[in-house]
């Protein structure tokens, strides 16, 4: 499948991936993240059940302390 990940084109061998699998694959190990699939927020409790498919637009935003 081909998806957009943080506005960049990415290709994966499998037809779909859960958010958990995608994060592991991309080595996103940040403790706190905002993840959006096609503009919809995906919360931490939904990472293992939300599936990303071909054509999806995925945004991963790292929460960084400071202010």
């Amino acid at each position, binding site marked *: 499948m081909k998806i957009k990940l943080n506005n960049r084109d990415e290709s994966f061998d499998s037809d779909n991936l859960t958010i958990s699998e995608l994060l592991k694959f991309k080595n996103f190990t940040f403790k706190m993240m905002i993840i959006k699939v096609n503009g919809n927020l995906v919360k931490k409790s939904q990472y293992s059940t939300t599936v990303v498919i071909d054509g999806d637009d995925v945004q991963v*935003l790292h929460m*960084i302390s400071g*202010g």
Partner: protein
Amino acid sequence: MTFKEIKKILGNKTVGIAGCGGLGSNCAVALARVGVGRLIIADFDIIEESNLNRQYYFYDQIGKYKATTLKNNIRLINPYINVESHVQELNSENIPDLFNCCDVIVEAFDKAEMKLMIIETVYDEMPEMPLVTGLGMAGWGNSNILRCRKSDKLYICGDEINEVSEVLPPLAPRVGIVANMQANTVLEILLNKGERL
């Protein structure tokens, strides 16, 4: 637009500022100077000496509540601004009550978990509300990697890299740049509906 025309538009707007630390105090002052009519500011904390390296307070204000003190400081700059201050710890329940009437909300917390909380709360409870967040501003130098970008109704200001630590403290210049980037983004949203971002 002339400044007179700008003030006429901004005078009817309400901006919510969640947190009155380095981001919130400097952002609120910038918005008050240009004439945003109503500011709703909230913070539970008191001013400490260590805050003065970046926050808009004065030495003799140490020990006072940030929210009420910021209101007083704004009054000294622009007495025509209606400032509603809340000494309150913000959470997913009181954020919608406090900020529902705003045109834009500025996220001005220091801790990552609070930033996460307000972004999730605004997405869940106020999906149409523009939210301007500050992510990554610790340390010094590297001005050119500080930037603003838009992701749906969420506007992100900062370098999205540099997290505060013992050896990478938050300091006036970079925190001030991001606070003013947030204020600048608010103007963009209020004056041209965020079109240029």
